[in-house]
């Protein structure tokens, strides 16, 4: 059994007590420590800025040309906080409860409560930085509703909340760069972790412009590198999002937890063809005012698909607003996993819309009638514009076509309450870790978690680790461990560059994506997963025999960059399938067809699966070993989730 190190005591006091019990580093000694932060999204930028403010020396790394480009920037809808500004019954406990329930009781109580607790500080911090949140006419902050909650606790900046929060964290980071406390390395990719006597002491990076392989030493390493949704090739992630940093850390001893927990977001623009490179999300906030429907009959759907009928031609009584029908109390605002599965269900019945038939309508006609087009534009203008650009259809005049797409990964690097992985001194923050969302993340909670980890958790917990190190000596970059790891990285690069087959890396990545989506997507079966495992193993073999990687190391080489990432995705894919196979229950985003209620909802098996699966890497082509962290629920009662 793994020890989560959640402190004892009443839920509401755990974090306060723990903060007091942790050791501190004297202000004058902080400058003797160097902390490496990989990734500069919400988690990374906020952590790096906050740690530098405290006096630590920080080095940040990102693969993009600027920290501001991290994919946190694309988050649209908002950020939750238990401010109860609306006087509608919100509280820290309610946010905690909603998040645990939304995660289908597969999250860790202590972490989730802490997240809810510090959520209120995040909003204060962002406002102090000058983040321009939406406001009421009286000048105070506005809120809106999001899925899985019956209170309005979501703070937002039009449909660009992630952008504004990231630019806030980026500004705090810039301030520390200016002060010389942070050294920022852009267009750098982390390719390995260096451990010395079991402690993480640095990283090996590749300068993407020059190809130079560099060693960077530090007293602690923070992975803030996001999720692994791009294992599916098509997802709402940015093109460059990858699992490489997390996966290489996994191979150096960091356990990987719940890899099968992936979030398929219900409202994305549907796929149009094979050339498609990514999928675009339409924010969940649209479900505040948009109504989801398909025709009641397959015949009408067929006519829509062939273009013989338009949405407006379908009479009110022939429409099935299936979410409102099945879940009257939450309606269109059911959690993401529930909304996605229901969309798949109606499409599988043949009631889908659009040319492909693989889409449902998200209709704003009622909202426009009720509020007027201008109000709708003010709320969602940029999202409507984006939809129009991509589809060439005007959503003010006809309903949007939407379909679920891979969006977020709840699984990730296993961490304890201090956000430390199973490698001492190596931490994982934000989407990169697994800890706060259980088997399904509620909307507007990813931004909350990234900033909570970076601004308000890691500054305390990393201090405790450093204070206990017992030495202020700088880490020696010339230690043989650096040389050894560096050689391994170089040999891996050379191996990739030697591939001279006839398939492109994208060909193989797309094939992997198809396998994952088909067998490890919205619905999974034992049979399908076993098949997928075989297919992935074959594909991996094909990659190393038949892929083609061009160019050389000493240049900007996108072929090489992609190849390294896809090689890691191929290994991760297999672990996801193993994990999905092991978890013989349905929970949140993990839906095993063998385990459902009579009404077709996810059916958990609390007796046998109320644990976190944490996988240990045992070497190339060796089966990974499963470790379990028991989930203990002292403050909520496990029930069948109901949003009816």
């Amino acid at each position, binding site marked *: 059994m793994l020890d989560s190190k959640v402190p004892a005591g009443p839920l509401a006091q755990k974090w306060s007590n723990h903060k007091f019990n942790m050791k501190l580093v004297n202000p004058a000694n902080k400058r003797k420590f160097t902390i490496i932060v990989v990734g500069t999204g919400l988690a990374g930028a906020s952590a790096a800025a906050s740690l530098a403010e405290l006096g630590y020396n920080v080095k940040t790394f990102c693969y993009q040309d600027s920290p501001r480009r*991290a994919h946190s920037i694309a988050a649209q809808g908002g950020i939750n906080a238990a401010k109860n500004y609306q006087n509608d019954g919100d509280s820290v406990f309610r946010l905690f409860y909603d998040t645990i329930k939304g995660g289908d009781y597969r999250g860790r109580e202590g972490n989730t409560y802490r997240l809810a607790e510090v959520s209120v*500080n995040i909003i204060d911090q962002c406002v102090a930085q000058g983040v*321009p949140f939406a406001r009421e006419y009286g000048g105070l902050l506005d809120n809106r509703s999001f899925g899985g909650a019956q209170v309005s606790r979501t703070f937002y900046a039009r449909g660009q909340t992630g952008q504004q929060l990231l630019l806030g964290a*980026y500004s705090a980071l810039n301030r520390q760069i*200016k002060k010389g406390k942070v050294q920022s390395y852009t267009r750098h990719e982390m390719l390995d972790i260096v451990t010395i006597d079991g402690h993480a002491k640095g990283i090996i990076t590749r300068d993407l412009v020059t190809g130079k392989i560099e060693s960077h030493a530090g007293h602690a390493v923070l992975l803030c590198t996001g999720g692994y949704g791009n294992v599916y090739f098509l997802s709402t992630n*940015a093109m460059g999002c990858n699992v490489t940093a997390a996966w290489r850390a996994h191979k150096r001893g960091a356990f990987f937890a719940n890899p099968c927990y992936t979030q398929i977001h219900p409202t994305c623009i549907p796929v149009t063809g094979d050339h498609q490179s990514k999928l675009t999300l339409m924010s969940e906030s649209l479900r505040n005012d948009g109504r989801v429907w398909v025709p009641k009959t397959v015949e009408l759907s067929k006519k829509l698909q062939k273009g013989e009928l338009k949405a407006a031609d379908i009479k009110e009584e022939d429409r099935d607003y299936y979410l409102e029908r099945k879940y009257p109390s939450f309606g269109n605002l059911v959690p993401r996993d529930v909304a996605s599965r229901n969309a798949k269900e109606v499409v599988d019945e043949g009631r889908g819309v659009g040319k492909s038939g693989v889409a449902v309508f998200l209709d704003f006609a009622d909202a426009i009638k009720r509020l007027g087009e201008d109000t709708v534009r003010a709320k969602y203008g940029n999202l409507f514009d984006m939809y129009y650009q991509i589809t060439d259809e005007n959503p003010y005049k006809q309903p949007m076509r939407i379909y679920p797409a891979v969006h977020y990964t709840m699984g990730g690097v296993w961490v304890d309450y201090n956000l430390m992985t199973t490698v001492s001194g190596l931490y994982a923050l934000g989407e990169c870790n697994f800890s706060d969302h259980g088997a399904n993340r509620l909307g507007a909670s990813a931004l909350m978690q990234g900033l909570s980890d970076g601004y308000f958790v890691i500054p305390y917990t990393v201090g405790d680790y450093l204070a206990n190190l017992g030495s202020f000596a700088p880490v020696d970059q010339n230690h043989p461990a650096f040389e050894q790891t560096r050689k391994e990285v170089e040999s891996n690069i050379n191996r990739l560059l030697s591939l001279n087959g006839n398939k492109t890396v994208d060909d193989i990545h797309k094939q992997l994506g198809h396998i994952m989506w088909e067998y490890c997507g919205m619905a999974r079966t034992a049979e399908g997963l076993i098949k997928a495992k075989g297919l992935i193993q074959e594909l991996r073999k094909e990659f190393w025999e038949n892929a083609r990687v*061009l160019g050389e190391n000493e240049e900007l080489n996108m072929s090489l960059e992609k190849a390294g990432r896809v090689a890691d995705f191929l290994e991760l894919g297999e672990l996801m399938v193993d994990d999905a196979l092991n978890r013989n229950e349905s929970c949140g985003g993990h839906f095993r067809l063998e385990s459902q209620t009579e009404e077709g909802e996810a059916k958990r098996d609390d007796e046998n699966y109320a644990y976190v699966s944490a996988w240990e890497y045992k070497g190339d082509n060796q089966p990974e070993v499963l470790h379990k962290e028991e989930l203990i629920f002292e403050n909520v009662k496990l029930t069948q989730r109901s949003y009816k």
Partner: protein
Amino acid sequence: MSKELNLTLKVWRQRNNKAKGQFVTIQANNIADDMSFLEMLDVVNEDLTRKGEDPIYFDHDCREGICGMCSLVINGRPHGPKEGTTTCQLHMRSFHDGQTIVIEPWRAAAFPVLKDLAVDRTAFDRIQQAGGYVNVNTGGVPDANTIPIPKRIADEAFESATCIGCGACVAACKNASAMLFVSAKVSQFALLPQGQTERYERAQAMVDQMDKEGFGSCTNTGACEAECPVGIKLTNIARLNREYLNAKIFRQEDVHS
């Protein structure tokens, strides 16, 4: 229904910062018009890769029009012919069959070419580092609602804050001026109460850094506003000029009272 296009691309190829670049003609056939411009380049690159030729390097990431990583001057216009979009949101339906498309990187002394269509925009980061923030540490800040901000002001600050830092304004400007970019951040904080205490130092520091980076002067032609994919307004530049002028006349402590 989607149509297919056959296109002639004239693409800027440059091996690295030191090498001499040139236009290379590449045929792009059977391009579906519902592809994005970058997906069209993906298809071209896949073909090149299969032939063992070096794919065209271009910057891109989110492909949702928000990260600001994509660039490209397409037929002489930053982010292409369609107004109010980034290159990643530009779709091939904006082009016609048989068309010749010229694709170049951003051209500006302050944005040196790294390879092919990718340029180094770290100058923008350094300008932000010079003063694009409020000096506030994590923790110890007041409750968010103790700072009421009139909706009109908050909305205006938000409009300025939506700059994605892509550099199209610089690429569009005959002087390669970065004034629109700088003014967007200066405006955001000049409008908001949180930005008042350092208002003038900020304007001065950011403009000084901009000059140091080698961006040109602003002559108010407005090309930047016309090409900005997110609609940053020229009024921001007027505000920046006012802030900068005030900074030269007054001391911050005289103003802030």
